[in-house]
């Protein structure tokens, strides 16, 4: 669920048509000259009655995501198979329900400064809010928590879930995440000079920053030996830290390179085994330059790659799961998505960047997610043989 559409079919259709969900920003009271990928209709969503204390834009997006593609029904089936207590939940978010706190701060008591009585801290603002909301919505009883490592959050949950299952902590796990538009990220990225004036244009010579998006996405992970026909395999995970700067990637893409190489090594694959790379590709000058260096050093000029952020915007903590799902669609439907809004590739960038959609067999995809604090994560997904 994101600005491209609701559900995998809608998102696949939009990618095929090279649509983009980016529109001029009219989010709440934000007055910033930028484009955003807003999900329509969030204001009209009501959370399930028993979970109404969790009401905030982020959990509304989460509920919208859980209602797509028969996911909640799928989990009900998994509960019967594994038992609710054996299903873990590992969810990623960057800002959780901070928008609820932003709104509450406008309604402080003018005399005492206290927050309004209807403000629910634990159920909205706390980073774990998303985890507990999803757990209750799906009726899960296993071990779970939230990963909040900025824009790598919902990629890293795949690594956590795989380790938990391998160690026998749980037999299956719900992974994914949600992040909503909020004033914190809009004004925050604007203060860093990182918001694009128009729709973001990844890898373009004239790229000028990110378009912030919002959405939610979820997947069920289980042991490979219990995978049914048509299942997608998590083949490799790589995680690293830049150890360079809080908000700027390593200029040589050193951390990114380490994450991609570790993902390949853990999968027992070579660079040539990857058919398509879904890039982090935020459309900032620095991210695209450093990611390109890292990708080119490992994959050379051959492997087709693209960023789908021109279509969805940068979903921040939800980028990892969103792009993992797009990678799965790429495998299932033989589609390498071309880059929406990118007009001409920056000649300084050397990777094989796709402007147009390409129909081809895609057996294995590597997808990158990098975040503030220099947090990097690469996943490799593949079709089951």
């Amino acid at each position, binding site marked *: 669920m994101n600005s491209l559409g609701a559900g995998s079919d809608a998102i696949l259709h939009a990618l095929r048509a090279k649509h983009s969900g980016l529109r001029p920003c009219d989010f709440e009271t934000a007055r910033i000259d930028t484009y955003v990928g807003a999900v329509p209709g969030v204001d009209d969503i009501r959370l399930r009655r028993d979970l109404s204390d969790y009401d905030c834009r982020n959990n509304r997006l989460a509920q919208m995501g859980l209602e797509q593609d028969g996911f909640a029904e799928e989990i009900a089936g998994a509960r019967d198979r594994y038992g609710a207590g054996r299903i873990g939940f590992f969810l990623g978010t960057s800002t959780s329900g901070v928008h609820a706190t932003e709104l509450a701060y406008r309604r402080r008591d003018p005399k005492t400064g206290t927050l309004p009585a209807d403000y629910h801290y634990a159920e909205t603002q706390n980073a774990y809010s998303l985890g507990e909301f999803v757990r209750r919505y799906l009726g899960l009883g296993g071990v779970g928590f939230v990963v909040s490592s900025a824009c790598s959050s919902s990629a890293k949950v795949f690594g956590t879930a795989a380790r938990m299952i391998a160690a026998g902590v749980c037999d299956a796990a719900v992974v994914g995440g949600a992040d909503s538009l909020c004033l914190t990220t809009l004004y925050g990225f604007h203060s860093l000079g990182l918001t694009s004036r128009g729709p973001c244009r990844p890898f373009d010579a004239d790229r000028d920053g990110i378009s912030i998006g919002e959405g939610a996405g979820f997947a069920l992970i289980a042991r490979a030996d219990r995978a049914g026909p048509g299942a997608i395999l998590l083949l490799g995970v790589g995680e690293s830290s830049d150890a360079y700067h809080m908000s700027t990637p390593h200029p040589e893409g050193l951390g990114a390179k380490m994450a991609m190489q570790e993902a390949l090594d853990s999968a027992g694959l070579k660079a040539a085994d990857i058919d398509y790379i879904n890039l982090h590709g935020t459309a900032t000058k620095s991210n695209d330059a450093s990611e390109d260096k890292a990708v080119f050093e490992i994959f050379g000029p051959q492997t087709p790659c693209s960023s789908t952020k021109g279509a969805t915007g940068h979903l921040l903590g939800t980028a990892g799961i969103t792009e993992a799902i797009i990678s799965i669609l790429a495998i299932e439907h033989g589609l390498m998505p071309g880059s929406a809004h990118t007009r001409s590739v920056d000649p300084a960038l050397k990777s094989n960047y796709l402007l147009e959609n390409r129909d081809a067999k895609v057996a294995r995809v590597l997808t990158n997610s990098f*975040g503030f604090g220099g947090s990097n994560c690469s996943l490799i997904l593949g079709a089951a043989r």
Partner: protein
Amino acid sequence: MRLFVEGVGLLGPGLPGWQVGRGVLAGEERFSFAPTIVVASDLLPAAERRRTPISVKLALAVGQEAFQSSGRDAAQTATVFTSSSGEPDTLHQMCETLASAEREVSPTRFHNSVHNAAAGYWSIATRSMEASTSLCAFDASFGAGLIEAATQIASRRSPVALIAYDHPYPEPLHSARPLVASFGVALVLAHERGAKASAMFELTFPPGEEKSTRLADSALEELRLGSPAARALPVLEALARRKEADVVLEFPTGRRLRVKVSPC
């Protein structure tokens, strides 16, 4: 899952470091509540030191203490950060600014607002390019971090530092989420029994309704309940007393984690 404790860092009210804290938790000295003293870590260059908020200083201080006794190289060690609140002062300042007519937030404040700010500063300070994650499980954040660290150790067969920290919010958020004090704990954990191993943890998930392990000292028990990071206190008490002990940590899901602590 088995793991070995190679280093401990501690900072809390009346617990100014593991050296003193160990004596208090072993019952050799009386615990008296005094405000947590968090000093800027000398791990960071002066310019960065000024920019780091207090929760980051807290996390860095306990991490540094744990590595000093472990003899491990922080640059070569993966990290698991876990916190319920992340960076509370920055959240408050950002929300105040965003509720005002001006709305001009500072770029430094914005990057300090991410839940993984401490992890970012730690990796810069220690030059560690190893994997690092930042978790939250509300009151169960310490237990969540311990499970994440244990499964990382099991899969990577290499050491992991667990750093749990929580700093109280200023008002008005403090009333919505009152924490009694600033508290941080760090454990350097390894997959095999090395020369520096002081204790072994065995993690299991017992069925049943067992309650979380409490502390006999009422002031320490108040601290345990008053800060998510201080949920680590029964584990630390077992380490300090150097006696075999079973510690139970509860999760919001009703699941329990049992940590069997055995001195090495």
